[in-house]
């Protein structure tokens, strides 16, 4: 029996095919938008689009905001299109890492790519080369992670191709800047912080939009929480319930592990646990949270975790590099890294939400952005950050926070700035997203000190 929900997969494939057909059939100066929820298979769809474009003998460029994303696309496309050569266009300080090289990949400076048919690079690099006249235009531009690309990135590559296909995840972290007065242009067409998708839809409101109704990464248990971040966007898991399994060996050993075991024994079958430390106002790198996360990781591996899924149908050991800890701040990351290294978990990934965008793990421990805060602010309430943290896992996600966190988003939301001509309100959207996530996790809440 197939582990996949064939109806969901078929509908999603049809949407992808329609989006690609629309992009290939677009007239000049037209673009198509494909919006996918977390783990919706955007990068795979990009590969499908490249294949379809090459079948029509079109010259294609694929652009992404970061180098890491570009590397992954190079190897991904090269593996699927073995009869084609994929050209990586590097910035001066960058080179394609060995693990992403394939027999049919090459790395070439922009001015030498005139005869190449599939170009991959960052938006900045392709845009810079095009602006200098050293990159010949292409027939079709594909932008991956288009919700992370800002208006300036998009401006640089706009005229690189007469037709665009923008793929993106609307729930992820939006473009940001370190400039303090960046709301100077909010609501205006020239706002540099609009996403590529926003720019396109402002100027070309007739652009076709396709919503992928699927998440391939998340399983059915994770979907209700993930939906919170995509209002008006219906999607379902590609895998059937029960296909993915995480099992732990029986809990033995000292009594002090009882609480950790309760959390793990809840998370393993249900896919979620929301661990609440006692209420306390703390600084960002809260030592108690660090201790708890390290203890959870240690206990998880003491319990000999085994996993199976649609790709590996027989049981295998959960490896430590399949586990990640998602944090909000670099100092949380630094201290956690040290503590995990000291405990012998060098391979467990620790990173900020920004850096985890686009990545997948079996088990994720999410250090709740609001944990121990006295009041909410724009940074911590950002729905994109929480969305990234809660949508990286294939098996289970354990959220670590403090008891009073939910009270931060109780009652009437605070006044947030609003701008004529700009309908988003991240502060308010974040408030409601946090509120719904707390509600969705209610059934998985396990408070430290409660009788378990």
């Amino acid at each position, binding site marked *: 029996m197939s582990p996949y929900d064939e109806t969901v997969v078929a509908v999603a494939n049809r949407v992808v095919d329609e989006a690609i057909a629309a992009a290939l059939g677009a007239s000049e100066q037209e673009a198509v938008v494909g919006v996918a929820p977390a783990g919706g298979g955007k990068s795979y769809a990009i590969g499908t689009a490249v294949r379809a474009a090459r079948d029509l003998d079109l010259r294609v460029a694929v652009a992404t905001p970061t180098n890491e994303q570009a590397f992954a696309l190079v190897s991904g496309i090269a593996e699927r299109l073995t009869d084609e050569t994929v050209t990586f266009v590097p910035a001066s300080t960058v080179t394609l890492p060995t693990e992403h090289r394939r027999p049919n990949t090459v790395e070439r400076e922009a001015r030498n790519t005139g005869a190449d048919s599939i170009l991959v690079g960052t938006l900045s690099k392709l845009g810079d080369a095009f602006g200098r006249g050293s990159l010949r235009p292409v027939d079709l531009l594909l932008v991956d992670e288009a919700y992370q690309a800002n208006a300036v990135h998009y*401006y640089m590559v706009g005229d690189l191709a007469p037709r665009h296909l923008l793929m993106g995840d609307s729930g992820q972290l939006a473009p940001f*800047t370190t*400039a303090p007065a960046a709301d100077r242009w909010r609501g205006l067409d*020239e706002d*540099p912080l609009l996403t590529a998708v926003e*720019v396109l839809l402002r*100027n070309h409101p007739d652009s076709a939009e396709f919503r992928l109704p699927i998440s391939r990464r998340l399983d059915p248990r994770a979907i209700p929480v993930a939906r919170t971040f995509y209002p008006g966007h219906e999607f379902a898991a590609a895998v059937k319930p029960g296909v993915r399994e995480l099992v732990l060996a029986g809990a033995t050993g000292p009594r002090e592990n009882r609480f950790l075991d309760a959390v793990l024994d809840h998370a393993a079958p249900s896919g979620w646990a929301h661990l609440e430390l006692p209420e306390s106002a703390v600084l960002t790198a809260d030592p108690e949270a660090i201790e708890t996360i390290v203890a959870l990781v240690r206990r998880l591996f003491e319990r000999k975790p085994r996993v199976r899924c649609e790709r590996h149908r027989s049981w295998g050991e959960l490896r430590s590099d399949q586990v990640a800890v998602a944090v909000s701040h670099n100092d949380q990351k630094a201290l956690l*890294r040290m503590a995990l290294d000291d405990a012998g978990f060098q391979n467990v990934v620790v990173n900020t939400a920004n850096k985890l965008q686009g990545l997948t793990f079996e088990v994720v421990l999410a250090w709740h952005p609001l944990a121990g805060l006295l009041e909410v602010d724009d940074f911590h309430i950002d729905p994109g950050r929480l969305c990234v943290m809660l949508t990286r896992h294939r098996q289970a996600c354990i959220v670590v926070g403090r008891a009073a966190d939910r009270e931060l988003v109780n009652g009437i939301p605070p006044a947030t700035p609003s701008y004529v001509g700009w309908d988003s309100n991240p502060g308010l959207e974040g408030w409601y997203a946090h509120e719904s996530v707390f509600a969705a996790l209610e059934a998985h809440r396990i408070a430290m000190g409660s009788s378990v």
Partner: protein
Amino acid sequence: MSYLWAAQVAEARRAGCAQRSALLRHRYLTERPLGMVMWQLGAEPFTAAAVAWGFGPEQREIAVPGEPRDRELSFRALTGVARSFNAWFEGATGRDQPPQIVIPNRGNLRLLDRLGRRLAYLPTDGETPADPELVRFGIHLRFLAERVLYPGQQLVVALTELLSTHWITELSELEGQSLPALDAAIDPPEHLTAHEAARSAEGVEIGPLPSREDDERVDPLVAAFNRRRGRRAEESVVAPLRSEIEQHYLQLVDRGWVLLWRCLARERAYHEAPGVARRWQEDVDALERHLDWVNEGGRYRTRHTHARAARTMRRWEDAQRLLEAEEAIDDPLRMIPALLANDAVQGRVVDVDLAHREQGPKRSVRRPLVTLACEERCLMPIGKQLWWTGTPAAKHYTVLTVVPAGAAWHVTLRHETSYAHPRPEVGEDVTFSIHHTSASLPIMLPDNPPWTHRKQEVAMDAIEEGQDARGWE
């Protein structure tokens, strides 16, 4: 929130007095800045009910239109301000330093911005021509309002900002917008704690938005003024009628005027940080470009093009980075947040290996190594890029290894250049941090917007870059 900030707020609470967040003064203060204090009418954010300006506590002029909602009276009063402001600002009166404007708070800044918007685009011909002085005043105010957004600028000093970047108090951000409260927390009267002093001072309003009480007092005065003048607006008629209103605003203005100069004098007493001079030069250059532009009859667009907005944001990001870097490099207290966030490491140099070589892509290259001994465990991730504070504009170093060495930790950094270069020497106490002052790469933006950034139906030719480039910026 930095850990240092949290600790200093707690200390401010414990000690009952404000704490310095900097050892030095990180803003330039000219010898003879122009002070300005303004009041608006309650619900009329585009009016100036009173404008006071001058060059010291004893040197104050004031313009009060009487009825600021009357265009003629309002513009006449503002023309007086405009004449002296323009003459000084444009250098016609022979000022010996570039101009700097000091105002009490952000509210005054926003009012100047609004007045600029109101004045800069007035027609100077037609039926009711505006005085060209007034329009130029508006254009200068627009320039300053835009310049204020540039991180680290010093042409306009809002005192609440100046104080809150150098002091840490128990006040919240909102409370810190009251200059009287902030001043009281920094320099409380002898028998009061900072908290008590700030609490009793925060009731003192210094504008530009009047309190209800102040507005209720002025309302009958303005009503009587309007009744007595009828519809007349000639100066000979209205001047004798508005003395009560003038008296009212003199009293309001003087609350802030004294405070402004006192706070300024207190900050001036601190030593200026070395990095301030570069930023001041940048301000002066921007000012000169502006004055040249205005002299040639140039105007400013109300909207930016895509390319201009993008370049402006990039300039602000660079300016913000340089500001943070220069302050941290200049001032040990400002480096502490970076140290606490593992964005900087301090230690004594125990080894310098100038001859170290590594295999590059083509041949082996020289990459000098510097090793520091740190007393505390260094949590710096391997591979992180750091700059030596001694040469913050030079090539970066990369963290190579962090290893325990007895009670200390040894951090080895690789300098990513083989050039002969000043480098730390053995025995020296040094700081390496993420702060650097090298220039960022320019962005390559086509002058004409791509099709994605142009409206589908309406051509936006009127504000596209490159057209009529002489007349507009």
